């Protein structure tokens, strides 16, 4: 049971094959089934009576939902729409891949994809105009990043609060089972918790979660009363206002635009401004800004680690083509995915950690 909108998108494909040159998964696996057009074809077969089976369901999860194909398509074809719906279909038909099912169980047990107790952080005040939304990836896997951001806010004299029990943003569940009511309810709980804090600005560490809050929450009527900003924009703003004055560091770096900052939020310059303010020499990678090739995601890594390793390697190839020896990132997800596959001659650094050292 696919929506008319989904059907329209599967049929919008003109089979020009240009998206296969952009798909981070298809490019590294080389498998035809991993191209966006193949997924459209599979679903139009289902619409014509073919059985939606375990293999088709599996194929729908071999995608990072990075939006690169959507961005480049001349017919306005948006595979993320029907892939999400097909994932819903997989859940409904009891055809979820086992690894995916395990993550859903983790979420329902602990609220996060790792199935662990989420570490707690505290802000500088119980109530403040600024709320820092850390998110599960940074909280569980990147404590140094969290410490760096918090230290930067303190240095800029910004009192901030952190939710005592930070609810999930619904980002990952939405990618796993599509946009269904269960996901909306999770989003609503998150919006309510943020609203109860009384904060005026929510600084969101993970750009993926910022995108969900800025773009999906309004669609789902989960209004956040505060202005939602990405950590990158917020920190870049502090530098612009002179509240953070970094010392110059010399060196050559390259930067990977994560899919959400690249295509959903169109925030390309704040990071570059931070890099510039630190005096670093930025070497742009092949496929940057809107065209950035996705390196994989923490969710993909959680249910298909071998695939995430391939996508990360695919992006490291682009890093290798620059003269920079350091890749700077601002996303906890990118840090985890790319950080697991660093080639011997290169290093990966978190921009906030660097900035914290420079301020």
């Amino acid at each position, binding site marked *: 049971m696919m929506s008319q909108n989904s059907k329209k998108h599967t049929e919008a494909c003109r089979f020009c094959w240009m998206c296969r040159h952009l798909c981070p998964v298809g490019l590294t696996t080389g498998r035809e089934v991993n191209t966006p057009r193949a997924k459209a074809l599979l679903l139009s077969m289902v619409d014509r009576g073919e059985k939606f089976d375990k293999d088709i369901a599996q194929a729908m999860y071999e995608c990072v939902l990075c939006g690169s194909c959507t961005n480049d398509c001349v017919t306005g074809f948006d595979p993320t729409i029907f892939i999400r719906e097909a994932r819903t279909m997989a859940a409904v038909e009891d055809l979820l891949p086992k690894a995916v099912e395990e993550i859903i169980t983790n979420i329902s047990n602990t609220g996060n994809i790792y199935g662990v107790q989420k570490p707690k952080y505290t802000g500088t005040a119980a109530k403040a105009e600024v709320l820092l939304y850390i998110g599960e990836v940074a909280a569980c896997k990147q404590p140094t990043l969290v410490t760096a951001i918090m230290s930067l806010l303190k240095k800029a004299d910004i009192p901030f609060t952190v939710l005592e029990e930070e609810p999930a943003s619904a980002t990952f569940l939405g990618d796993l089972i599509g946009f269904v009511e269960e996901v909306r309810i999770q989003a609503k709980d998150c919006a309510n918790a943020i609203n109860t804090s009384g904060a005026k600005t929510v600084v969101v560490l993970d750009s993926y979660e910022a995108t969900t809050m800025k773009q999906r*929450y*309004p*669609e789902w009527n989960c*209004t*956040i009363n505060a*202005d939602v900003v990405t950590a990158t924009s917020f920190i870049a703003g502090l530098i612009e206002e002179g509240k953070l004055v970094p010392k110059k560091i010399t060196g050559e770096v390259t930067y990977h635009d994560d899919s959400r900052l690249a295509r959903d939020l169109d925030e390309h310059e704040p990071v570059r401004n931070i890099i510039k303010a630190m005096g670093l020499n930025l070497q742009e990678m092949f496929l940057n800004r809107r065209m950035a090739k996705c390196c994989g995601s923490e969710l993909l890594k959680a249910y298909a680690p071998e695939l995430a390793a391939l996508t990360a390697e695919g992006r490291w190839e682009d890093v290798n083509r620059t003269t920079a020896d350091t890749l700077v990132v601002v996303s906890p997800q990118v840090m985890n995915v790319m950080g697991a596959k660093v080639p011997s001659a290169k290093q990966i650094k978190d921009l906030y950690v660097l900035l914290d050292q420079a301020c």
Partner: protein
Amino acid sequence: MITSNDIWVIGDKQIKYDLALLSKAHSMAEVCAGKVFAVMLYETDPDYCIRAGADEVYLLQGLEKIADDAAIAHALASLLRENRPGTVLFQATVRGRAIAPAVAALLSTGLTADCIDLKMEESGLLLQKRPALGDSIIAEIVCDKLRPQMATVRPGVLEDPTFQEKRTGKVSIIPIEINALVTKTGFMPAQSSELLSEAKIIIAGGVGIGSREGFEYLREIALQIGGCVGASRAAVDAGYAPYTWQIGQTGIAVKPNLYIAVGISGAVHHLVGMNASDYIVAINRDAKAPILQYADYAIVGEWRHILEQWFLSYQERKVCI
């Protein structure tokens, strides 16, 4: 009694639109040799109605506080059954668009919604023009087999009323007893900055405004210059502005003297709600935004900068005066 070519105008609350509709009815009645009856649902000076074109005025008493549209429709339908006019016209206000269909259903006849033009044929057949599909087409509609033929007319589309000083006419006061099944328990008048349908100046923002705070700024400016603030659907969807501010197909249609579209790209469903404005100014940072084609004047640049600069000059001038 057979159906006449008379035209009945049901007046509902907004005297200036009611009088315009009476004048229009008067000129149509001359074509088909009928008379014009004004049926006023509220207290008003019947002389104005007569001078605007009514031959007879019925002042219905006791309806001011009635919120039961079905009951009002029953009262009107029995009057219409007794008198059998050929045409009945209502204002396309929220109330008019509720009462008129109820009357039409009671009389088992046709009704055309939200007409923007009417033309009477000699035979007494009414040509009703109404926009559809977001104003992209105009449908010409007739009700050729049944009488009365009924229409609601969009407020503000007709020419101003013409008054003939020496006209005389009959006035009857009709008390109406209603057993209302719907009762009114309260009323909250809209804030002056939100009375979009009556506004002379509207400053409307789109997603380009970028935040709630931005919309607060627009509202402040609107209040300063005695205008109203509006929003595009995209801005409402993004949570920047409340739905009551929404202009367009799924919001309210407006017709101010001056419409200032700030950070609005110009989606079709927004355009249909504002393109009747006398003068449209677009402020947009994108010189290729569709809204520019639909504007009389455009300023390309950052909206905040432009409005702040303008506001400074506005305040300076105010001090001078």
